[in-house]
């Protein structure tokens, strides 16, 4: 008898489901969602700022766009995207190396532009109507991430060697003031 009663009790216990109160978890998730939505940036620029770069603060609200990235940190080290390519002096000497490196990047980019031009207009979400130039002559974009203390002489040298390879549309990456 005793065993029958205990069996019944066990069966009853099995039916009772444990309910977890997830209200607090939902609160946290909502806060996280709001925070992430606020910090969401709808740009196609994937930027990995190298070490020792203090990005200058600006009132600009223009969103960045994908292009080759040149970075100079406070130790005057020059990076192409995230790869260190040269050590510069105060006057920017050493930036000559960019001419060869950016030539390769320019060729790659121009090939991409030529492919985009060949695409039928219906499949191209953004037709290349911005420039009437041929892909080989079209000015290319370049993103500059300079440390806020970089002197203009050094900046000008980097900009000069970038423009020599057709990267003549400069975009200075800055940090928003926040809200």
């Amino acid at each position, binding site marked *: 008898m005793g065993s029958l009663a205990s069996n019944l009790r066990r069966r009853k216990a099995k039916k009772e489901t444990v309910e977890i109160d997830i209200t607090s978890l939902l609160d946290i998730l909502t806060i996280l969602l709001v925070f992430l939505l606020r910090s969401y940036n709808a740009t196609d620029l994937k*930027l990995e700022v190298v070490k020792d770069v203090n990005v200058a603060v600006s009132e600009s609200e223009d969103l960045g766009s994908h292009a080759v990235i040149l970075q100079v940190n406070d130790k005057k080290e020059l990076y192409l995207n995230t790869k260190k390519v040269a050590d510069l002096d105060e006057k920017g000497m050493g930036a000559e190396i960019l001419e060869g490196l950016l030539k390769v990047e320019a060729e790659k980019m121009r090939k991409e532009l030529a492919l985009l031009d060949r695409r039928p207009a219906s499949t191209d979400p953004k037709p290349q109507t911005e420039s009437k130039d041929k892909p080989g002559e079209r000015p290319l974009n370049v993103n500059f991430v300079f440390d806020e203390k970089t*002197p203009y002489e050094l900046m000008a040298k980097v900009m000069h060697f970038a*423009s020599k390879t057709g990267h003549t549309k400069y975009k200075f990456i800055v940090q928003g003031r926040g809200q």
Partner: protein
Amino acid sequence: MLRPRKKMKVPKLNLVPIMDAIFIFIFFLLLSAQFLDIHEIKAEAPVVATYQEEKHKKEPLNLMLEIDEKQIIIKTGVDGNIYKKLDMNENLTQLHTLLIELKGKNISEQSVIVKPAKNLEFKKIVSILDQIRGTKQEITGTNDKGEIIKTNALFPQIIFESIM
């Protein structure tokens, strides 16, 4: 005899599907989040700065800013006449006010030539570019065709005078 009241059962909402959706959304946002608030300032190299050849009724503004550690010299006209000299230590709002005034008189003008000194820091250049590019107040002016134009942009087309 009164019967004991039955307890009203409060129907519980099934939050599982919405939780699933929120989790997926958070995962996507976490992956695409950039915690550095990044923006850009557009500029052009002097060699490719395009000048739109139009038949101007009046002389082009040809605005140029020479910036050094101590002062900002504002030049206008083809001959580069000095319009105003501003002390660098003064508040940059004076520069902004002057540019608004110039824009009001030359509403169709978009470009400015910037000539910073060699030792000028990027941070200072950026703070000046902020004053040059746009304004919060609306500027009204009349263009060459006599049309009334309202704009918030000052001189967004920035050209560096020399990069060598």
